[in-house]
């Protein structure tokens, strides 16, 4: 595949970012931010995953099809999570009336 050749420095930079992200997520776990803890943790994890996908897995320089395929996998997971949780989260809503 006549792929894009990235300089080694790019790989080292992404690596550093990933390690930093790991350190951040561990540190953040020990700080009480209430409901924000989960948000921060997920945001860092998603960012790290995105870095791996875009740079280590070359999606940044790949075809649009590759990007669509990768994105659709994660999107479909959201469908599974979302539509299932909307059942659990609304269990207490309707008590036989429309209130």
């Amino acid at each position, binding site marked *: 595949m006549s792929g894009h050749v990235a300089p080694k420095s790019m790989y080292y930079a992404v690596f550093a970012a990933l390690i930093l992200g790991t350190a951040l997520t561990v540190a953040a776990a020990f700080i009480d931010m209430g409901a924000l803890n989960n948000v921060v943790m997920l945001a860092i994890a998603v960012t790290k995953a995105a870095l791996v996908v875009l740079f280590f897995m070359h999606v940044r320089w790949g075809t649009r*099809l590759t990007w669509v395929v990768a994105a*659709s*996998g994660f999107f*479909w997971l959201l*469908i*599974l999570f979302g*539509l*299932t949780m*909307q*059942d*659990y989260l*609304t*269990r207490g*809503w*309707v008590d036989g009336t429309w209130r």
Partner: protein
Amino acid sequence: METTAAPLNYLNNGHGLASWLLTRDHKRIALLYLWSITVFFFLGGFFALMIRLELLTPAADMVQPETYNKLFTMHGVVMVFFFLIPSIPAVLGNFLLPIMIGAKDLAFPRINLLSWYIYILGGMFTLVAAITGGVDTGWTFYAPYSTSASNSHVITAGVGIFITGFSSILTGLNFIVTTHRMRAPGMTWFRLPLFVWAHYATSLIMILGTPVIAITVLLVAVERGLHLGIFDPALGGDPVLFQHLFWFYSHPAVYIMILPAMGVVAELVQAFSRKNIFGYTFVAFSSLAIAIIGFLVWGHHLFVAGQSTYAGLVFSIISFFVAIPSAVKVFNWTATIYKGSVSWDSPMLYAFGFIGLFSIGGLTGLFLATLGMDIHMHDTYFIIAHFHYVMVGGAIFGYLGGMHYWWPKITGRMYPEGWARFAALNIFVGFNLTFFPQFIVGYLGMPRRYAMYAPEFQIYNVLSTAGATILGIGYLIPMDYFTWSLKYAPLAGDNPWGARGLEWEIPSPPPTENFTATPIVTEGTHQYAPSREVGIV
């Protein structure tokens, strides 16, 4: 019988068992699948026969209720996982997809062969489960019965289904990559046959859905084997979670079963009306729409399972929406036939059957999508009639129509048309007699999955069993004349139907590499011109 030396084609290119069992030719792999799914079809049919025999009388007098539970379970497992899901994609899809897009083979021929071996391995596990005593949970394996209380071979069957899932995944993967990367020059997406669009959409479902049932079945086996509390409430688990995970795949799975048949019907109505499809773009996109929206409706199987009413509302509304692209197809097929030059050859009989029976099945699905109606009809024979109308009246009619249409291409022989029409009629009558009474008796309250029923339901069950007998005989007739045709029927020629499409421009049977040179496509492959002579390039 012809005695001239046959030209080199994929059937005589290499002899002996090894040349078939180690083949990379998508056409030979399609035939390997054809043989295996036919075996499983008749196994599933045998279980169906036993069910219908037991239901001739209201009492559970032929088999024990525990045995009856195993019969309907094995019927469902075999028919769903080992016949319906592979059938059209693994046989007709494998054979035709590369040819229809102008390629020499699928993108990954060895993975194609592997998918067949995986299918056989999974089938072996399920056969072992059947022979050593069967499974009695229903094909839906609901927890906690499947994980804790059942004494049957749940893990063995579950492993079989898990393994076979990978066959489905690999087939879908192959089709997706092939369609994206192996099209001949000039074969743009909107020149593709609708059969290809249908299989592409089916492959999307295979990829996105099958892994979820794989992990679910694995968890059932783990919970059963190690007594972990995942789905069993007695162990702290959640049985509704099982149903969410199970149906997340199993609902889209029904679209895996029907979409390929719809692709077949699109080809048949064009060929036998001598007319281009009405609204090609709409029909192409409707396949994608069914695949995508089909992933958003699974909760309609959980209306009475303890799911929240709000979620039931959401799933009910979306289930109404999923009917729209199916309706688009039915309207467009009908518009294609309208003012076409219609011939009543046996494939077209199956296409007509499909359109009528799928419409009935699909509309009754809308009844069931209605929350209030489903509370009355859930777990009754109404549901059974509904899904048999779409699965048999739809998917199997599509499969048979496709097998008849492409049989001359696959084998180079033309089956006897008179017998074929008789069989089609036989199957149509038998099918309706079997399943229409089930709508009525289900609405009247007869529950599913019981060996015994109230005496006032007997007349409907007797009619249904009579129909099933006729249907069973009907299925045997094509087996007979197809087999006969291999040796004794006249040679078919390259394009016996005078149809359009790349597959009809190559010899019957095709050479191993499909095309002697890469075709260059300049317009859509299904240009039927009523005023032109057909079959002549």
